């Protein structure tokens, strides 16, 4: 593995260099909110102190709106064109918990028998640069350590940028995809022994704080018996049924397919959608199998901690805490997990 040393200025320069040949999505600061955005010439990279921008990088792989094909309406209605193939892209500064969120999306969208071509095409041309932080920078709202993820955890990254908390960074080049960015990286000096020693120290401290005390297998078992439990009434009581939690969640991936007509031409798109909306489950007949917020709030929790784990062997939550931070009513998903633990055995 090759390693490089960077100053804070080098980090911005690295992003600029990558932009020469790639679309680069990275955290920026806009009106007090850190958000992943496609970098432009006039935007400045801004790594958030806690490493987890409120708006996640999900849209780089699952855009809010994705064109599936274009069509022409008429006597012979036909598909006329496919959207262009996605261009090479780099996700810059992705926190370890968000890297695991990408793994959730990978699992869902590559699952047989229906691997998802648009997702996989984007994923194929995506290079992930992780962002490691000293564990004392973990935000109060995050709980990834309880799900077995450390703040210096470089697994599943192509490159890993570790913040040494002293104005210096180490870049680890981990995969062939990472090496393919060599022209932007090679000019950087090799990592100094001091920087590497500090990284090792911070990494071991970060690992030591991984408690992994949320036992997902146990949670799944419990949830499988709680479908009709009274607790959902309490979980849902405060909820106003908006989409803030799911839309900011890096693993929520449900979508709605719509035709957007403009005269006799149009395109079929898929837009983000969420189980928290009444319309989400409404049938063409008018019947709606989920008629109240209790059922919808239950679905969100079940999908994250029961169905996800049952079908793919991983939880659909990586503890980033965005839902905790963004809920207008300040509901905390960690309280729901506690409630599940406290339910009497049926």
């Amino acid at each position, binding site marked *: 593995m090759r390693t490089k040393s960077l100053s804070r200025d080098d980090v911005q320069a690295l992003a600029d260099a990558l932009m020469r040949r790639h679309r680069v999505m990275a955290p920026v600061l806009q009106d007090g909110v850190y958000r992943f955005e496609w970098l432009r010439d006039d935007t400045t990279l801004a790594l958030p102190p806690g490493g987890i921008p409120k708006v996640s990088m999900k849209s780089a792989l699952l855009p809010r709106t994705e064109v599936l094909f274009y069509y022409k309406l008429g006597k012979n209605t036909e598909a006329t064109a496919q959207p262009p193939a996605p261009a090479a892209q780099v996700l810059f500064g992705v926190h370890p918990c968000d890297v695991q969120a990408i793994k959730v999306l990978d699992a869902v969208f590559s699952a047989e028998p229906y691997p998802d071509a648009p997702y996989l095409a984007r994923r194929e041309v995506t290079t992930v640069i992780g962002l490691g932080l000293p564990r004392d920078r973990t935000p109060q*709202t995050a709980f990834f350590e309880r799900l077995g993820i450390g703040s210096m955890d470089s697994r599943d990254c192509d490159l890993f940028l570790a913040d040494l908390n002293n104005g210096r960074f180490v870049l680890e080049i981990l995969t062939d995809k990472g090496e393919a960015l060599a022209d932007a990286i090679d000019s950087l000096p090799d990592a100094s022994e001091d920087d590497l020693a500090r990284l090792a120290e911070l990494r071991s401290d970060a690992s030591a704080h991984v408690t992994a005390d949320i036992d997902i297998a146990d949670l799944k078992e419990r949830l499988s018996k709680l479908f009709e439990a009274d607790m959902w009434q309490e979980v849902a009581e*405060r909820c106003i049924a908006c989409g803030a939690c799911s839309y900011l969640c890096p693993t929520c991936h449900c979508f709605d397919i719509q035709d957007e007509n403009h005269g006799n031409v149009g395109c079929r798109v898929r837009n983000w959608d969420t189980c928290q909306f009444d319309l989400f489950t409404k049938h063409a007949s008018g019947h709606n199998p989920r008629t109240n917020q209790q059922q919808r709030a239950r679905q969100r929790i079940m999908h994250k901690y029961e169905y996800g784990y049952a079908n793919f062997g991983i939880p659909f939550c990586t503890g980033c805490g965005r839902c905790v931070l963004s809920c207008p009513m300040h509901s905390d998903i960690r309280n729901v997990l506690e409630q599940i633990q406290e339910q009497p055995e049926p």
Partner: protein
Amino acid sequence: MPTEQVNLNEIARRLLADGTVDVVIGYTTGSQPLVAVPAFVRDPQDADTLVFNRFCEQNLVNYLHRFKAKRVAVVVKGCDERSVIGLIQEKQLDRQKLVLIGAPCAGIVDPRLVPEDATEEETLGDDVMYAGCAACAVRNPRFADYLIGAPVPQPEAPEFSDTTAELEDVESDERWRYFSREMRKCILCFACRNVCPACYCNVCFTESSQPKWMSKTDDESDAMFFHLTRLLHLTGRCTGCGACARACPVNVDLRTYNDRLRKDVKDVFEFEAGLDPEARAPMTCFRDNDKNEFIK
């Protein structure tokens, strides 16, 4: 007769114990520091969990739509109480079934302005309150059945957002740029609509699929269409409580546009929603002494 000043926990307990109400909707301490969450108290023994502090940012009046068949006590700040008045005027609430527990409010803390390491309320000054709160002239509930504290001082005239005023003085393409920029942030999560006590349509136009009034793509025109339609629907009804702006997870500047409409309604119809229970809302009545300056 001055409104009776009481202790929040005692009055909640009493109202539940003597059967005056079925539920008290108030606030309790949240799971994180500097956060309060809505609480629904039904058992008098739980009345002690209620709190009121500078973090009680939600407008609980929004929940009253769910409890129409029940007798409810609700904790209201001055701004929230305006929503109650608006909803009574629109025949959505029955004042007789409602007990208003008024909370004089010196301003709610804007978490975006709080230093990252702050964990104690005492360390926060007045400079960390929401801009709308700093300009609020209805800090003291006026029609509440009980007050849980002494009235607080407040500015005299209501102030509208500084940005509203600034945007009035610039060219229209500059206004358009600002509006586009804000709309590009919107992710159509509908938190603004869902927290709004005045947004109570059974089926919002955004939820209609036949006909599909609105597309939900990432094109900014969809967000514009949603917000413009919602704004127009709230004209003369928005009380400026600011719940939508506080709820927005991506900080869209909703206040500027709500305030622009409130200002227009005030100028044209001499009406401010939720202030005077006896006033007729401009969209529900005809007055031959309206200024009519927009008709030439």
